């Protein structure tokens, strides 16, 4: 994903349908909805592929490449995605000098709330948010974002007793383990999102 040298000169108000799609994508990144159970199971299965196995030589090489890319040395597709997701969750405030021309353009177009973006043609919905982004929102909402960003919390290991409000009936052990596993799958997913900088 490469940005033009000066994207502001090339920006035009988006087509309403594209703008709506973009707004939906940003909203989904900012306030994700509930995954379908089947999709959720598939993601967990993919994430948990043989966690006890030693990393392969290729995986070690790729992880080193990713580490360097995240430190600004070289590139890596996953690094772009990670930055994109982080930008979607915690967008950097745009400099005032760049905001003003955008605001003037927006006012000329008689739009009260406009989202400008430059993005690569092949970018996926989540990666859309990696692009230059301006979102006009109330100041108090930004303060709330900053507070959340400052204190990401991980779900920690703990007793599962809170998952049960009734006496254990004999013959229902499978239901209990189902409930425990489902609860901790949700916790792990939240931890992973938090680790990627997109936790809520």
């Amino acid at each position, binding site marked *: 994903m490469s940005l033009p040298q000066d994207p502001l000169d090339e920006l035009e108000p988006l087509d309403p349908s594209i703008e709506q799609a973009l707004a939906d994508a940003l909203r989904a990144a900012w306030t994700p909805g509930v995954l379908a159970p089947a999709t959720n199971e598939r993601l967990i299965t993919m994430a948990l592929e043989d966690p006890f196995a030693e990393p392969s030589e290729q995986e070690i090489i790729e*992880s080193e490449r990713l580490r360097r890319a995240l430190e600004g040395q070289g590139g890596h597709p996953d690094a772009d995605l990670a930055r994109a997701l982080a930008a979607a969750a915690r967008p950097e405030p745009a400099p005032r000098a760049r905001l003003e021309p955008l605001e003037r353009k927006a006012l000329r177009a008689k739009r009260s709330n406009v989202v400008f973006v430059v993005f690569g043609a092949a970018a996926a919905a989540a990666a859309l948010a990696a692009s230059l982004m301006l979102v006009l929102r109330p100041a108090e909402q930004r303060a709330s974002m900053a507070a959340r960003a400052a204190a990401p919390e*991980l779900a920690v290991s703990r007793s599962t007793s809170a998952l049960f409000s009734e006496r254990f009936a004999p013959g229902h052990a499978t239901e209990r383990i189902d409930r425990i596993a489902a609860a901790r799958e949700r916790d792990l997913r939240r931890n992973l999102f938090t680790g990627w900088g997109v936790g809520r």
Partner: protein
Amino acid sequence: MKRARSALLFAAALGAPLATGCSKEDQTLTACPELDAGRPIDPVLLAFLGRARSAHHAADAYEERGDLAAATKTLADVVAGPVPGGARPPPEAREVIADTRARMADLESKVGKFDEALREVERGLERVPETSYFRGHLFEVRGLIEERRQKALEERGDRAAADQARQRALQAFEESMRIQSEVIRGVTP
């Protein structure tokens, strides 16, 4: 790549508990509050829970076709297999193991292996020393085991031993009820 990414994400979190006050030399398999607190949920715990869940579903299938030995063996593989945290499993793993042992005990007692069943209950109780539904359930299973033993003894005509088994069953059920009452009181506002 996924494993490497997960490892990076959780490396610091997994290392943190080593700095707590729980002795690494103490190999008891019970709770360690200092380790239990603040250890993030990680893929290894989920792998263990997934394995246990699969085993319980498989045991259901074996039970449905009447193969209690195969059901018990499947569950035994879970408690004998790798457990996250090694000698210091996280609370979820301890509780799942305790519940799995309770089910194994129930199955073994159904085929007359009363002593083996009671050993499973004891091992389960070691995992959950705190007052909880898990502990209460283990005492309930202990009561069921003694009840089945009592019936088996009565069928053999050993009335004195049957009476002793009945007494042990009553004690176990009473202890189960006491624990469950405590749990209910603990969660009731």
